[in-house]
């Protein structure tokens, strides 16, 4: 059996993960290794008048202490950002320096000011406590909206009003304003899409290793993106030679976006190792993770949607303040703009859309991509508007959506759908997912039950959410024109070994997505060989030619397509060798079930024999090179556009305000599916994360810029018993522009679920006539207070 596509194959990586045999960055111990502890600012905004390290330097085991001053004097650059977004007037965005350690002032609680390097982790930590820093506290600002007000504390002197950029997309504002004036009804919402902490199971870690004898550098790091990290490290930060730098991202325990970015600690470990001629390791503890991993979301928005008398959407107007944190992280400028504004068409035929986004610096940790990155924010906004509008216009929320959906198109017979906000959707049948979800819910029956429950004083509610996302990131020419400083293609190399076993090198990185299984299924299926004959290699810049990493649900759509391109080259070359061996012409051969057969005969040659011939080419076709090893770059023609419909059913406890999620129905269309079990797992995980934002999670900064819930005692994560057994299904509308027809599934669950839950709670609270919007997370206290108000 070599037919693997569409089969629920168990993950090959689970054996090592589930038996504790994974090999993570912190597991790596190198001879002579030193340990680093980073001294961080306890204040959100404070000048450093003096740092006295004299006592700490005398402590046991301390090898060296470097401060921001040492970094500044070494003349290296700071951490760059990978995307440029300009002001409306064409001015370049503000891009203040982001040094590896700060010398003059700290701009967020957690900003690194010194690094202690010692023989052991404990000694480094103890010595760090003995460093005396003379701080001069400055007023701080944590809210993106407050930061833009006149007189607000300035995070960077060079960014007036703390504005990094202001940006606009869609139809001219006057056109949208005009359409709004003609509206019969306008629904307006103002809300915060709150800041969330990524909370990957494995905290970040980095080991820098410089070998003086060879002049080679190695960085072991918890990255979703080893090649891009190497590029940024070499070309932008340290100026070290890229061909002598190896970046390894071994097993990585979850990322959710937070490990895409190039962090200061990575460059710092290399910088320290080069000076001390010994490997240096830094491992973040959980508390440090809360305050230094790039957070997600944090948008303050005002959104208005205009409708005609029949409930047709006429226009959408959005103004967003996006919190970027104290410095620009790798993708930060792109998330609230090109990954948020461009998704505001949603699934609707809205004829006029204008979105205006101000990117703002604040005295908080950096904000960047977090599972969904911009698309959950867009979806939340649209879907809260839809359910609220339905309530205000006394229409059914499902009917209102079905009425406004873009009609079905397959992207082959019918062209792609051109939105008002720059994108062209590839293919979709949006009515189908919502109709299937309604069927699964038993919608009419539910509404009757709800009416009965209300009579008994029970607060039962249903909430809808339909979404679309732009995945398979991204066509290089398109994103280049939008400000990306790197192409976003992917690399796939297929090396057939002499014995017919296959090693595949991919630039996509797996940190929980199961690539080692899914990619192997694609390869084994195409080559007609057993799954066990395929090994997927990733995460090491010395083995894998190049890559752009894993994020934006891109691995299979872009990375998988690159592998398919190489497989095509293997099969093409194999056919030449097979034709020679079978003494037939290539045109007379067909390749299936792992062998080339002369059509209409029983003459055939197996894949393994062809592979062996390629490496032992004694009897070989003329003009064909020996060996069987192909590498391909795949640059997608367009984004891919997964979509779906999510429905939540909740019951709110009248006395306590506690929300019980009773059912969650998700119908997603992620295009073709290679491994349904892995896709289900991705959807489940995404749903839990999205529901987490709706009900439990949220980073809280006080007015001094102190993160006040930076531990698991204070920050609530969703738990298994908070969640029902998910009811999920799929429709399949293949992507028309990649060879596998896949669209991406990693973020879908996290994008659609959040507004569905909030809408359900608002529906449950309807008997209270509550018009005011509730802010996430919908904690029992907030819900209870609203019921009392």
């Amino acid at each position, binding site marked *: 059996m070599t037919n693997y596509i569409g089969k629920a194959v168990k993950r090959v990586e689970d054996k090592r993960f589930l038996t504790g045999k994974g090999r993570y960055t912190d597991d790596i111990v190198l001879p002579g290794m030193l340990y680093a502890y980073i001294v961080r600012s*306890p204040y959100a905004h404070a000048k450093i008048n003096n740092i006295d390290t004299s006592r700490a330097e005398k402590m046991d085991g301390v090898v060296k202490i470097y401060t921001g001053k040492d970094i500044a004097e070494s003349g290296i650059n700071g951490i760059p950002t990978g995307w440029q977004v300009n002001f409306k007037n064409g001015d370049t965005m503000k891009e203040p320096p982001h040094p590896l350690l700060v010398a003059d002032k700290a701009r967020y*609680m957690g900003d690194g000011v010194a690094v202690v390097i010692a023989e052991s982790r404990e000694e480094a930590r103890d010595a760090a406590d003995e460093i005396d820093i003379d701080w001069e506290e400055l007023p701080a600002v944590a809210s993106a909206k407050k930061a833009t007000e006149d007189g607000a504390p300035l995070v960077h002197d060079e960014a007036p009003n703390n504005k990094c950029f202001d940006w606009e997309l869609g139809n001219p504002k006057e056109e949208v304003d005009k359409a709004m004036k003609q509206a019969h009804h306008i629904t307006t919402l103002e809300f915060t899409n709150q800041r969330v902490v990524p909370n990957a199971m494995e905290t970040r870690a980095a080991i820098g290793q410089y070998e003086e004898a060879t002049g080679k550098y190695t960085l072991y790091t918890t990255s979703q993106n080893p090649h891009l990290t190497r590029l940024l490290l070499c070309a932008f930060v340290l100026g070290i030679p890229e061909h002598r730098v190896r970046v390894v991202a071994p097993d990585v325990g979850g990322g959710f976006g937070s490990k895409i970015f190039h962090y200061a600690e990575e460059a710092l470990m290399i910088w320290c190792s080069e000076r001390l001629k010994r490997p240096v390791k830094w491992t973040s503890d959980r508390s440090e993770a*809360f305050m230094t991993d790039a957070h997600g979301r944090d948008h303050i928005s005002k959104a208005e949607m205009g409708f005609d008398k029949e409930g047709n959407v006429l226009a959408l107007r959005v103004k967003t303040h996006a919190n970027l944190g104290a410095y620009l992280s790798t993708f930060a400028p792109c998330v609230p703009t090109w990954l948020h504004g461009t998704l505001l068409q949603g699934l609707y035929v809205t004829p006029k859309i204008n979105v205006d986004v101000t990117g703002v610096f604040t005295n908080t940790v950096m904000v960047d991509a977090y599972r969904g990155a911009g698309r959950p924010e867009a979806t939340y906004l649209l879907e809260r508007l839809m359910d609220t509008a339905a309530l205000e216009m006394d229409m059914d929320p499902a009917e209102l959506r079905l009425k406004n959906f873009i009609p079905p198109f397959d992207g082959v017979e019918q062209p792609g759908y051109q939105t008002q906000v720059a994108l062209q959707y590839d293919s979709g049948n949006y009515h189908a997912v919502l109709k299937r979800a309604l069927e699964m819910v038993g919608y009419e029956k539910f509404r009757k039950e709800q009416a009965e429950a209300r009579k008994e004083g029970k607060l039962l509610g249903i909430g809808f959410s339909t979404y679309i996302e732009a995945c398979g990131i991204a066509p290089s020419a398109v994103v280049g024109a939008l400000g990306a400083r790197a192409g976003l293609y992917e690399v796939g190399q297929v090396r057939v070994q002499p014995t017919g076993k296959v090693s595949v090198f991919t630039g996509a990185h797996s940190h929980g997505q199961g690539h080692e299984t899914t990619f192997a299924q694609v390869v084994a299926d195409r080559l007609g060989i057993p799954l066990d004959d395929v090994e997927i290699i990733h995460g090491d810049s010395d083995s894998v030619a190049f890559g752009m990493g894993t994020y934006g649900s891109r691995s299979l759509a872009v990375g998988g397509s690159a592998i398919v391109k190489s497989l095509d080259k293997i099969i093409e070359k194999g056919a030449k060798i097979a034709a020679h061996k079978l003494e037939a012409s290539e045109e007379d051969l067909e390749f299936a079930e792992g062998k080339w057969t002369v059509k209409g005969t029983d003459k055939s040659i197996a894949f393994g024999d062809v592979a062996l011939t390629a490496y032992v080419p004694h009897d070989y076709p003329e003009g064909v090179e020996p060996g069987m090893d192909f590498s391909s770059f795949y640059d997608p023609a367009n984004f891919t556009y997964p979509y779906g419909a999510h429905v939540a059913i909740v019951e709110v406890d009248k006395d306590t305000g506690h929300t019980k999620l009773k059912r969650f129905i998700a119908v997603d269309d992620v295009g073709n599916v290679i491994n349904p079990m892995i896709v289900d797992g991705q959807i489940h995980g995404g749903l839990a994360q999205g529901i987490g934002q709706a009900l439990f999670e949220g980073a809280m900064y006080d007015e001094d810029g*102190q993160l*006040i*819930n930076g*531990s698991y*005692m*204070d920050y609530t994560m969703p738990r298994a018993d908070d969640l029902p057994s998910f009811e999920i299904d799929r429709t399949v509308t293949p992507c028309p522009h990649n060879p596998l027809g896949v669209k991406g599934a990693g973020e879908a669950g996290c994008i659609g679920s959040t507004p569905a839950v909030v809408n359900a709670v608002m529906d449950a609270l309807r008997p209270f006539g509550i018009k005011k919007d509730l802010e996430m997370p919908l904690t029992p206290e907030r819900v209870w207070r609203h019921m009392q108000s």
Partner: protein
Amino acid sequence: MHLKGSHQFNAPAHQIFKMLMDADTLARITPGVSELEATGQDTYKAIANVKMGPVSGSFSGNLEVAEKHEPESFVLKIQQNSKIGNVAADVKIDLEETSSETTRLSFDGKARLSGLLARTGQRVLSGVANTLSKQFFKALEEELENLAHQPA
């Protein structure tokens, strides 16, 4: 973090005021304080060990008594640093004689926390502060009683 509370004592205001201005007494009655040393007129160096919710630490720093209006009010300015974070607080203390023999002491102020102290368990800290102020009042009450029983 907002700090607010009050307590009624069976003593005249001037007696309480005097007691609160005495470094030795203050060191005795303030929970966690192990050392209180006058460094100048109305300024002190303080060392304290306090368990605050899930975190505990050894604090050192300065205390300053400002805006003294004997015997009605004063402001206590606190700056305490520790490995787990820093505390800065300004607390106004009012003494109001409710009768010739009784006085109501009330305090109102704001404490600003930073570092691990701010990040971990802050929502339980107001409870901790409440407990500490109760301990302080109780100790002060005992001091006043001892004083009353001392031969004149």
